[in-house]
């Protein structure tokens, strides 16, 4: 049970850390934004509190010091600086390490000590400056109410079950007293006699008079974890109504009891600004209650079952049309409609806004730019674009790679940029948009762009292209996605691009996506990733070759035309067909796969865009569009690289889904070594 809670804490803390990072980066840009500071403080406070609760003592200790610094900022006693932000970001990393690496929670980590020390120094510097200015009393001073600041009357009435939730009110009260000078009294009127008392129910509530210069927010923050588990009222009061000395202690009781006329259940807030806060809290709690956390594997199971249902439904539709029984047909149509709705709803559950992935890169850009002495702004667009959660997860590495490349090799140092008449600060734009059943992600930089000549020279040297090959600049740019080129470290210093780009391409292709590069020398580069919305169900094009059926991902398909043998020929070992006035290389799939039988007189050629070039795939017949539920093939078929999965047709037949870029590669290999390929061209 405890482990389960610890896992929940880890999950929650990871999310909070991501939000924290974004807020910190925002704060660096807008150091005056106190709303951001408040948000940062609350996130830290939550991590601290729940960390302590689940035995992550290091995290709690670390966060305690950091949040104190942000509390000083909130109260205008400390300035936001780049160093402070960097230090806090480093703390976030440390906390993440503690969460990821620790199962014991109380690991003694020297780094934690170093960070705590660093923040203590900041706090000491801040406090000594403050003391010199105001000579205010120590916050821990529990002297009678006479210190600087505002006086509040607080009633803290925990719900009866607070003990059962694992909350101990004493540390909260102690934290409250640390905010300033205060007096509190336990109200025990509701405590029943021994034979009636439930020992695990809380009957006590507290009235507190607190004078603090830390503001009402600091008071609220103390109770941040028990917000739902207590009734809390905070009211600013006139200090003159509070006894200046403690001689007549009755007076405190009188003030507390008599002047606390309000219903203890209601949250009453005095300053007008807090109405807003209360409103946002109400809103937050509504939002919380309207969404629930579901384990990802449960969702995966649901998607799988919907996939099965889609398959069964298409069988039903087929049988209904074969039987041609009006009543069955009607039922089949209803089922089809409902299944389609169910499928869309299920898929939408898995959809996440891509902004969750984008936000991670702000940190990457911030850190790397600093490290390289460059000035870079990251602009994100279309964060609301939704995409399948699996795609988002697997997109992370390629995007990191592309952004690193842009920062490292694309954007020039400020002095170089200035010399070229550009602004010293470079810009990387990360954008996402829907396009049909795909999502298009673009990473654009206004840096140096690609050096086509250098790439071409390198490609010739590596034997990727012939010395006399005539390639457009666009085609040359795509060459950096080839393994032979991209693994060459030297190319980086020549062209400024290319490390590991083949890895990016491979990862994106594994997601059934494509990568394309556009660049203008001196003006920058754009990497365009086109990805399917989901990996679970795709739109496919069902084709037949002899007795065999195959599915081609529709997202890649451009058009289907009849293959006119009179307008096709061979050149340099390649089959070429004239389609709409353009010579398009094509692959006779029947020959490539060694399928027996005679092709029909009129074959079909399906053209697709592969690596920026048009390629035709010759098949016997095109059946039509097919809603394809993707099934993995299992380990036995893991070496069959020309298929990306399988699907089940309405009649129960299993059909392979072709991985078109890999089919092209296989065809290229066969062209070079014709003996291995049966009758391949």
């Amino acid at each position: 049970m405890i482990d389960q809670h610890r896992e929940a804490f880890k999950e929650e803390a990871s999310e909070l850390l991501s939000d924290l990072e974004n807020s910190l980066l925002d704060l660096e840009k807008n150091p005056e934004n106190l709303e951001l500071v408040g948000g940062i403080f609350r996130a830290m406070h939550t991590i601290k509190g729940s960390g302590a609760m689940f035995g992550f003592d290091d995290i709690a200790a670390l966060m305690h010091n950091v949040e104190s610094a942000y509390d000083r900022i909130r109260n205008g006693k400390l300035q936001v600086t780049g160093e402070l932000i960097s230090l806090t970001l480093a703390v976030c990393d440390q906390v993440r390490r503690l969460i990821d690496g620790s199962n014991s929670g109380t690991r003694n980590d020297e780094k934690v000590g170093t960070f705590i020390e660093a923040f203590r120094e900041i706090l000491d510097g801040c406090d000594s400056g403050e003391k010199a200015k105001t000579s205010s009393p120590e916050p821990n001073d529990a002297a009678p109410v006479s210190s600087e600041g505002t006086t509040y009357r607080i009633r803290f009435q925990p719900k009866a079950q607070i003990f059962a939730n694992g909350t101990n009110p004493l540390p909260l009260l102690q934290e409250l007293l640390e905010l300033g000078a205060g007096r509190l009294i336990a109200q025990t009127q509701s405590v029943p006699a021994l034979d009636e008392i439930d020992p695990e129910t809380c009957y006590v509530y507290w009235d507190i008079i607190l004078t603090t210069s830390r503001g009402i927010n600091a008071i609220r923050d103390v109770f941040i974890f028990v917000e739902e588990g207590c009734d809390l009222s905070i009211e600013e009061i006139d200090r003159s109504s509070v006894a200046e000395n403690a001689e007549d202690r009755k007076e405190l009781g009188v003030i507390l009891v008599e002047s606390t006329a309000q219903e203890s259940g209601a949250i009453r807030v005095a300053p007008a600004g807090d109405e807003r806060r209360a409103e946002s809290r109400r809103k937050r709690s509504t939002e919380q209650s309207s969404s629930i956390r579901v384990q990802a594997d449960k969702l995966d199971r649901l998607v799988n079952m919907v996939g099965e249902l889609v398959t069964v439904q298409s069988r039903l539709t087929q049988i209904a049309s074969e039987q041609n029984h009006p009543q069955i047909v009607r039922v089949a149509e209803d089922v089809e409609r409902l299944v389609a709705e169910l499928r869309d709803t299920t898929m939408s559950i898995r959809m996440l806004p891509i902004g969750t992935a984008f936000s991670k890169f702000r940190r990457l850009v911030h850190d790397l730019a600093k490290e390289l002495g460059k000035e870079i702004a990251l602009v994100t667009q279309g964060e609301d674009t939704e995409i399948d959660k699996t795609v988002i997860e697997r997109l992370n590495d390629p995007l990191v790679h592309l952004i690193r490349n842009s920062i490292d090799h694309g954007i020039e140092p400020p002095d170089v940029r200035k010399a070229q008449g550009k602004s010293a600060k470079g810009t990387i734009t990360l954008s996402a948009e829907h396009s049909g059943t795909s999502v298009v992600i673009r990473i654009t930089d206004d840096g140096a762009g690609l050096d086509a000549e250098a790439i071409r020279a390198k490609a010739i040297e590596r034997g990727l292209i012939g010395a006399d090959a005539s390639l457009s600049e666009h085609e040359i740019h795509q060459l950096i996605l080839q393994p032979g080129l991209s693994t060459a470290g030297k190319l980086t210093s020549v062209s400024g691009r290319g490390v590991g780009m083949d890895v990016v391409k491979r990862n994106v292709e594994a997601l059934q996506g494509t990568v394309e590069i556009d660049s203008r020398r001196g003006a920058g580069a754009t990497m365009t990733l086109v990805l399917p919305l989901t990996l679970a169900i795709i739109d496919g094009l069902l084709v037949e070759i002899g007795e065999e059926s195959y599915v081609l991902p529709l997202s890649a398909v451009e058009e289907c035309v009849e293959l006119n043998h009179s307008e096709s020929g061979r050149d340099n070992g390649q089959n070429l067909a004239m389609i709409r006035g353009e010579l398009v290389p094509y692959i006779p799939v029947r020959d490539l796969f060694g399928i027996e039988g005679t092709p029909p007189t009129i074959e079909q050629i399906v053209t697709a865009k592969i690596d920026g070039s048009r390629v035709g795939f010759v098949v016997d017949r095109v059946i039509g569009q097919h809603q394809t539920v993707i099934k993995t093939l299992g380990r036995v078929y893991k070496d069959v690289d020309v298929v990306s999965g399988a699907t089940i047709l309405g009649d129960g037949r299993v059909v392979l889904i072709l991985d078109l870029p890999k089919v092209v590669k296989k065809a290229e290999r066969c062209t070079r070594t014709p003996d291995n390929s049966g009758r391949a061209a």
Partner: protein
Amino acid sequence: MSHELSTVGATTPVRLQGEWTIQRARELKELLTDRLSVQRVLALDLRDVSEIDVAALQLICSAHQTAQMRGGDIFISSPLSSTIEEALHIGGFSQRLSCNLYEKNPCLLGRGDRG
């Protein structure tokens, strides 16, 4: 052993030792109920209590009220450890003056009634 009982005249000393928190709240209730069923006046010795929380403090408060209702009393017979002092201070008990039930009687946990 975390608590010792021995009867001295009409007063039963109840010596609590160790941690008395929510985990042992039921045990404490049973103990106090049991003692008050046989004796009207209890002398609580808290010097060896290493930790105490609100659940335990409110039980002591409840026992004090119960004893008074039955014409008895509870008093604290020992000096208090700094742990208890701190818990009473932070918990706002030591600031209490009188008992809720019998306003003229001092609060057991408040500053007026110790020793």
